[in-house]
């Protein structure tokens, strides 16, 4: 894919030589080169993660913050509180988790479809293609805090653009609320789609550039129309790209914090109480780090499980295909 794009730009680069011909070098140098990266990874990623697992077994509240080793051991009680669906905390977590899954699935499906439609329709050259591609990338290029605050303005009940548009089109008679109540879920989904579909478009466009045009010509000679070509050529050849793209989009959407935080602040309406905000609120607003950490660990386990199943299913599917 890189080679295709570089070739298109007139950059010449020879392909990497096949592995068995490579002159591998050995010695201490690679370890020295990795030291800075390893130190940073340990300090910011690995150690905090282990500490996080540790904290999830402690009764860590604000009183023990500056001396967390004095915090009493809690055993598995944080996990039991988080998983007890009959208790208030567990119920709220389950509610938040369900909403997050629903929001992720809808946003993922629509973002991918929009990205795919846009990529298919801009695959063949036409006048204005360059401009429209640039337009499509703008939502992805804008910093989240700037673009989502604009959505917040648009979704205001009395001064927002969305309600004005609905009134002008006579679709509503009174102004609905978009940032509180049950509508807030739809607002969040729409903004998340607006933000992430350009990324799907970007990756799918790049993926389509590596599909040889004579395959389309062959399909066309066989009598395939535009839809048939997408079904028999584009989709099968995009499989490896889609496999990575869907996983990345899933993880990003599921873990996203910036979009809901900018839209609703640290206290979202319960209909849009996304898991990352929910844990954040539990930890930094209620100052209960133990339960917050237990929830984070459970979230990580869930994501690991989903990723593992997804990759395994992809491998199986690939073998049978």
């Amino acid at each position, binding site marked *: 894919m890189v080679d295709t794009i570089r070739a298109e730009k007139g950059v010449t680069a020879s392909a990497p030589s096949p592995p068995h011909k490579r002159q591998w*070098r050995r010695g201490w140098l690679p370890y020295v080169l990795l030291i*800075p990266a390893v130190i*940073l990874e340990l300090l910011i990623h690995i150690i905090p993660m282990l500490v996080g697992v540790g904290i999830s077994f402690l009764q860590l509240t604000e009183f023990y913050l500056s001396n967390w080793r004095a915090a009493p051991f809690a055993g598995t009680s944080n996990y039991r509180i988080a998983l007890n669906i009959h208790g208030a905390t567990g119920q709220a977590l389950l509610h938040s988790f369900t909403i997050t899954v629903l929001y992720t699935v809808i946003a993922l499906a629509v973002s991918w479809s929009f990205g795919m439609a846009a990529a298919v329709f801009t695959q063949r050259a036409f006048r204005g293609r360059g401009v429209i591609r640039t337009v499509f990338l703008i939502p992805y290029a804008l910093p989240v805090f700037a673009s989502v*605050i604009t959505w917040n303005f648009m979704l205001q009940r009395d001064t927002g653009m969305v309600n004005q548009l609905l009134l002008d089109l006579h679709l509503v008679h009174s102004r609905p609320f978009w940032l509180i109540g049950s509508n807030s879920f739809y607002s969040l989904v729409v903004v998340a789609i607006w933000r992430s579909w350009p990324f799907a478009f970007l990756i799918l466009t790049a993926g389509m550039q590596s599909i040889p045009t004579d395959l389309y010509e062959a399909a066309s000679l066989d009598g395939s129309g535009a839809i048939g070509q997408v079904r028999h050529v584009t989709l099968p050849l995009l499989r490896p790209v889609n496999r990575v793209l869907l996983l990345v989009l899933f993880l990003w959407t599921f873990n996203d914090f910036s979009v809901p935080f900018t839209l609703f602040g640290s206290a979202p309406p319960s209909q849009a109480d996304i898991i*990352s905000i929910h844990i954040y609120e539990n930890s930094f607003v209620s100052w209960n780090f133990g339960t917050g950490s237990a929830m984070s660990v459970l979230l990580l386990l869930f994501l690991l499980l989903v990723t593992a199943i997804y990759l395994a299913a992809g491998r199986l599917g690939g073998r049978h295909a």
Partner: protein
Amino acid sequence: MHEATWFRWARVIVLTLLGLFALTPVYVMLSASLKPLPDVEGAFRWFPSHVTVAPFIDMWQTIPLLRYLENSLVVSTTASVASVLIALLAAYAISRYRFHGRQVFSITILSTQMFPGILFLLPLFVIFVNIGRVTSINLYGSRTGLIITYMTFTLPFAIWMLAAYLDTIPRELDEAAKVDGSGPMGAFIRVVIPAAIPGIVAVLIYAFMTAWSEMLFASVLTNDTTRTLAVGLQGYATQNQVYWNQIMAASLTVSVPIVVGFLLLQRFLVAGMTAGSVK
């Protein structure tokens, strides 16, 4: 190639709708930033009653925008440059050497990308507070703490993209430099780095954009003096009166450089991002 008429119409309709969807917030941002205050306090107007640039002047007074801008610039620039330098070293090792732990390192570093940020945030907060208590190194609430954090965030992706990029640079180049009497590091600095400039620039932009937009860690690890734009911009909304025209003016101002930079270099970014999926 022949295109059916329905295909052309479908293309016009779909691309127009998606274009409108993509651009509506941009139009609202731009038009509201040129409106006088009464225009944004009443029902939404599609056009300003009269065009004014006052929001672009007043926005600097309502919140300490200049300080936030400076913080964001210092943090994002330092973090992205440092991250790329460190990633380059690691990418060179991965691309040119086979050593014990190479696979483990690559997989570990990539898998950290999928972990929810909230998982690191709690412990990092506790660690930073405690480091400050035990030593006099103040990481919590300082730019340094945020810089180190952001460096690490962009590191996995930067290493991945740069290693893929270095793989496309022929080994014969470094071999030739070594024949000329350079050591491995000499060849790296004099031959490999210059050949990798486009990849380096793309990763630099990616790292800068990531740091510029990050909110979760910035909202917890900064205080009033070190606040970045991503969190600081919310300050307009907590005033007694919400100056939407100023918020839009400020949003536009801090977005333009990022959007332009991204659009200029998106080709390189895509090349780097998709490099991994073809292997």
